[in-house]
């Protein structure tokens, strides 16, 4: 039996053609198709229009099976995506485009659920998208995170084997996240650290912005390939700019007007949060553009400095409320005193050597005693 296309599925659910075209337009706009690097790279002229490219894809392609795994996580990314206030897209992806296995969302539980996963892996081998939330743990063969008696490493490996693409969502899955914070007892790592033979996309964030996750899935669906990635495997359309680049408080940064504390005059006036430890300048994410809660706000807008949650090891990058320029490792008073002591000892040692040399030099150069010249001696006689 031929699988239904997405378009057919949507029509069955009662979507009008007009609404379908609107949807295509929204998706095309969101993906920024016209400016999408892969499109440019292919040299394709989008003719007749971007939304028709999307429409074409949705009309011809079947729904994409998705397997959503969770390891060391808080389910925050799932929370974010399921409660996303742009229901159009998340529902679209989670319900209409298809989902086969999601531990938190699926109705099945226990052995039933595991069975469903295994069946799914077999049935869609080579076609499904694997989404990973939470960090795999490597210490002691992964025993710190097991599902149904299987270690997370085992689950990840067998699930990844037949994946068309892997999407790591949230900082934990991407870079180890909070579980990987020093001293990282469970040996948490990012998915891409373990899976080298399948394409992996990182959607870091804490949580990942739902629209970015869904957007990336849609991109894969529409374009048949993953979006262009940066050096940390993050999709460039969403991670091409820093939070600082598009910050609405940026003019205050340029003018040197800073918030000194959370409740000062500057905070009320909406000044720049740099001094409160904002990591915006080094944090690549789409917060400032997409925002949260249907574009309502995002941390910096609400008056809180960026924590840098889309960057590796943001948990260990110095205090959240300490300026970004501050060194992350500090000399405390005790160790400074020790160092000064060491320097002093070194200096004193060399001074000792030099003193010996000086004494030798003093002996080598004869210093006359209170002298009396021969001529004077004669006179005195």
């Amino acid at each position: 039996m031929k699988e239904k296309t997405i378009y057919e599925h949507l029509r069955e659910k009662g979507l009008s053609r007009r609404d379908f075209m609107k949807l295509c337009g929204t998706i095309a706009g969101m993906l920024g198709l016209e400016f999408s690097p892969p499109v440019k790279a292919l040299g394709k002229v989008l003719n007749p229009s971007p939304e028709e490219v999307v429409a074409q894809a949705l009309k011809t392609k079947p729904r994409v099976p998705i397997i959503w795994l969770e390891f060391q996580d808080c389910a925050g990314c799932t929370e974010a995506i399921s409660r996303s206030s742009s229901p159009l897209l998340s529902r679209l992806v989670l319900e209409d485009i298809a989902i086969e296995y999601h531990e938190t969302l699926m109705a099945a539980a226990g052995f039933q659920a595991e069975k469903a996963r295994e069946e799914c892996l077999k049935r869609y081998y080579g076609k499904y998208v694997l989404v990973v939330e939470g960090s795999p743990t490597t210490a002691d063969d992964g025993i710190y995170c097991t599902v149904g008696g299987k270690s997370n490493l085992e689950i990840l490996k067998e699930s990844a084997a037949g994946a068309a693409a892997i999407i790591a969502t949230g900082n934990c899955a991407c870079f180890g996240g909070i579980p990987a914070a020093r001293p990282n007892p469970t040996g948490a790592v990012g998915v891409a650290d373990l899976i080298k033979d399948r394409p992996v996309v990182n959607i870091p964030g804490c949580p990942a912005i739902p629209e970015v996750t869904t957007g990336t899935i849609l991109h894969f669906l529409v374009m048949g390939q993953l979006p262009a990635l940066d050096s940390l495997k993050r999709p460039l359309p969403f991670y091409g700019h820093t939070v600082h680049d598009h910050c609405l408080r940026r003019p205050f940064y340029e003018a040197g007007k800073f918030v000194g504390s959370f409740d000062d005059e500057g905070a009320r006036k909406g000044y720049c949060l740099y001094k409160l430890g904002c990591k915006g300048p080094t944090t690549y994410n789409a917060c400032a553009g997409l925002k949260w809660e249907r574009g309502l706000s995002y941390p910096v807008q609400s008056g809180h400095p960026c924590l840098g949650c889309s960057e590796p090891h943001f948990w260990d990058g110095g205090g959240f409320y300490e300026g970004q320029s501050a060194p992350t490792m500090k000399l405390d008073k005790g160790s400074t005193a020790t160092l000064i002591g060491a320097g002093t000892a070194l200096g004193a040692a060399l001074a000792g050597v030099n003193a010996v040399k000086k004494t030798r030099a003093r002996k080598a150069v004869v210093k006359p005693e209170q002298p009396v010249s021969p001529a004077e001696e004669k006179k005195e006689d």
Partner: protein
Amino acid sequence: MNWTEILSFSRGPLLHISMIIFVVGMSYRLVRVVLLGWERDRASNKGSKLKGVVINYLKGLIILPFIPWVGRTFRRNELTFIAGGLFHLSLFVVLAFGTAHILVWKSLFGLSWKPLPTPVVSFFSSVGIISLIILLVNRLTHPVLKLLTRLPVWINWVVVFLPMITGFIMARHLWFKYEVIFSLHLISVSLLLIWIPLGRISHFLFYFFSRTIHGAQAGKRAIMP
């Protein structure tokens, strides 16, 4: 290794190690010099040593940098005086009143104060960079400086210039990605910290010796230092 990792390395271990080298190196150097021994000057005083020292510091900190023309040699050497003075002034303004630097001092010493407006700091940092370039050209062309300048002095120039130029680019968000230029800035600062105990940039410490000595000598002899 990507730039994010380089940045966290240079903000953390690299800067840490260079600070350790700086602290150990400077205390070593100071102690080595001081312990060479001091002889008491037994000649009786004609004037007040203290007065001489105070006047000499005022001269060094106010007159020479800001009104150098009262010294008679100024007109023979405007470039070194003006560029040198402006360089030190800019360095002070940027280090003491740049927001990012204030945060560094706050984290290191727990003290913080109000920064100057960014455009002002920016202005001074460009002044500092231009002065440093002028000083370099002067060093390349002046016959005396050509004679005096050996490799270590060129290194001095480079290790001072690099943090200044990278800091300037970073603060203005020019050309480079922020984490790249931030890393370069921190690497160059580390280089500077490591070099200071080895080179003549340590004059900021020995300055107090020579100024005190000259001031005391002048005061003792009842002359203007």
